[in-house]
């Protein structure tokens, strides 16, 4: 079958078995591509598990290009290994009903992606939903989200909030001195002067342009 993308996605079955290794296919001959994406489903992969998976695939000449996962742990492990990862949350109607807001608008069904640790030059995280980084985003690193980008640390790289067009998205950081900011389809260079320390700032679109202002006290890491 002709696929739109040139990559093949390999989906792990739901995690009923005790070890993900048992869930891998016995032979890989049906994987023709040199790069694949793996859907980790509801398995929780530690960095070590992921590294083993990468090695397994590498031994047969296949590069792991991206993973999808339902568990944030897996996404965090992947991001810290520099693999692009995407969190897939179960559809709200399938979730347990202890959630207060059951309003099924696309926005509420989006999850928050947590990333703990500094993102270094060349590293990148991308997520459908909000992103919360606990650490710095160094020059040359990139964060992009369809929702808000929140950084409990210094933003010195590039951030894109509202990717896909959401103009109400914002970027919040404890220190906002990015190389470049993008919100929805707007692009702005970072400010020349350094911000004052200890003052969280946010960037958002006002009257069609990106402005930076002191962060609203309830806007950060809420």
């Amino acid at each position: 079958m002709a696929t739109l993308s040139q990559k093949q996605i390999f989906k792990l079955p739901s995690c009923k078995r005790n070890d993900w290794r048992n869930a891998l296919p016995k032979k890989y001959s049906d994987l023709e591509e040199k790069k694949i994406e793996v859907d980790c489903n509801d398995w929780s992969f530690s960095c070590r598990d992921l590294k083993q998976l990468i090695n397994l695939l590498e031994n047969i000449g296949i590069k792991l290009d991206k993973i999808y996962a339902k568990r944030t742990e897996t996404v965090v492990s992947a991001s810290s290994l520099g693999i692009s990862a995407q969190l897939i949350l179960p559809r709200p109607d399938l979730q347990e009903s202890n959630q207060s807001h059951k309003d099924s608008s696309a926005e509420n069904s989006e999850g928050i992606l947590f990333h703990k640790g500094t993102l270094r030059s060349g590293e990148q995280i991308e997520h459908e939903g909000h992103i919360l980084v606990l650490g710095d985003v160094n020059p040359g690193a990139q964060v992009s989200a369809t929702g808000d980008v929140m950084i409990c640390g210094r933003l010195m790289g590039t951030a894109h909030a509202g990717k896909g067009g959401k103009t109400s998205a914002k970027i919040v950081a404890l220190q906002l001195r990015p190389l470049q900011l993008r919100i929805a389809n707007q692009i702005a260079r970072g400010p020349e002067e350094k911000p004052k320390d200890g003052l969280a700032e946010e960037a958002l679109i006002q009257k069609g342009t990106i402005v930076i202002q002191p962060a609203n006290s309830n806007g950060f890491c809420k």
Partner: protein
Amino acid sequence: MAPNTRIILICSGKGGVGKTTLTANLGIALAQQGVKTAVLDADFGLRNLDLLLGLENRIVYTAQEVLEETCRLDQALVKHKRESNLALLPAGNPRMLDWLKPDDMQRIVSMLAEKFDYVLIDCPAGVEDGFKNAASAAQEAIVITTPEISAVRDADRVIGLLNTKSIKPIQLVLNRVRPKMIASQEMLSVNDVTDILALPLLGLVLEDEQVIVSTNRGEPLTLTGSKSPAARCYGNVARRLQGEDIPLIDPSKEGQSLRDKFRRLMATKIF
């Protein structure tokens, strides 16, 4: 593998920031302190560690022949002519660019680890295969950078990659520091660099013309017992690596002539 051998990768990302110079000087300095040290030239596409150590004309074999078992390890090791605790091993031959794989690297390093206390691996520039091979056998790393935005950016990238390989600890050496330029804010300060890279600072190395002179002679500064600023810095890096607690030099107090120092002293006395 001998349990106590320290296998240290010396890398930078950006080319020409001083990896090979550091490897050579550190190798000599450690050897002088009495520890058996091997320097492995993993940058064999453009190998020049042998040049800096003045050993170019003594190379007969490389790690390649050792692994193929056409020679023994001690035949391939080139002992330094004046510092017998130091030996050089070229990882490969410039003609065999794609020969070395991570596996080979690990095998050769574990052979070295049986004979030496330190194995220093001079890494090629870049973050591609050459870097990955060199890094595959390392346990810890020294990232070297200069106070320039591009070098710092590349160092940051390399640190990110080292983190994914569980190489620990990763320490920083800041090379080619020019106190005058820092004072006039024409150069990133030490803080600017450590602020971004967030690594423990193993040492600063001052910009020093003597480095170039010694390179051309094939005699690392630390070998000749030179009192030049960089020689002192390299010596300190080696001693800190060995666990000695030596304060960092203060760039704002360096690089002044005796007369300047005297004048400053006077100034502080008077006011």
